[in-house]
């Protein structure tokens, strides 16, 4: 068993188990902590897919910043005080149908693809594509407009956060 396969199995198992544990916790803070574990193991999977920069960003932004926001929302709302307000009838059937559809889709794609055929093709391009150097080259030459647009998006988020939050405690 190669190192890649071993690490893939470890990260995939951690991701799947922590995902299941996350949605089955009744304590919301525990669910949030399992979500951190899930996001961290996804970072490991990104690393195995040669997306090194995305893997680091996954840890810094998702497992770091986004989870801080999640924990703040939990602290703000204290959802354990809330009882389940409405039980929508047939929600379990609906959820089961959605899950079955996604499963069939994934099974179809996995069975349709031929795992052995892609092994011989040249992978150096995809290995280089994930490095921070190639992302920098692409982002600041070919994708300069989306980059600046992302700046305006963040500006809009800043102003939106202030407008929404300041009004509450003034």
């Amino acid at each position: 068993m190669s190192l890649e396969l071993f690490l893939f199995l470890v990260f995939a198992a951690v991701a799947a188990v922590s995902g299941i544990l996350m949605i089955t916790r009744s304590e919301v803070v525990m669910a949030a902590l399992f979500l951190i574990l899930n996001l961290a193991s996804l970072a490991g999977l990104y690393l195995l897919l040669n997306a090194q920069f995305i893997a680091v960003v996954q840890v810094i932004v998702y497992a770091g910043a986004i989870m801080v926001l999640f924990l703040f929302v939990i602290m703000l709302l204290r959802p354990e005080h809330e009882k389940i307000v409405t039980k929508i009838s047939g929600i379990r059937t609906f959820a089961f149908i959605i899950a079955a559809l996604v499963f069939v889709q994934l099974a179809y794609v996995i069975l349709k693809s031929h795992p052995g055929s892609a092994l011989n093709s040249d992978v150096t391009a995809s290995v280089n594509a994930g490095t921070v150097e190639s992302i920098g080259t692409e982002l600041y030459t070919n994708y300069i407009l989306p980059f600046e647009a992302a700046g305006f998006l963040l500006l809009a988020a800043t102003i939106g956060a202030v407008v929404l939050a300041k009004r509450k405690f003034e």
Partner: protein
Amino acid sequence: MIEQYIPVFLVIAFAIVFAVLVVFSSKLLGPQRPTPEKLSTYESGMKPVGSTHERVSVKYYLVAMLFIIFDLEVIFVYPWAVKFRILYNEIGTSVFVSMLIFLIVLELGYLYVYKKGGFKWE
């Protein structure tokens, strides 16, 4: 390819082992003779009043939100900083100006928050 990340995995593994060891060693090695008094929450010698799960102010949410925004701003600076010298030699000052525009746009947001008193804690 993945072999060059073995030190990173070793650090993660060491952190996990160390954390588990520290958390559970006191439970394993220390003597445990619990009494109801020992297990009760100590609060200045008084009986604990109410839940610790108090709702916090929405001010924290603003801080968390601003943290995420400027965290993402820094994410865009990393690849720029790594490739700056090479891109500067290739295409000149426009690579500097593009990052300057991006940062100015975000600093406008920073100034807006500052003027609105978003950093004040009253």
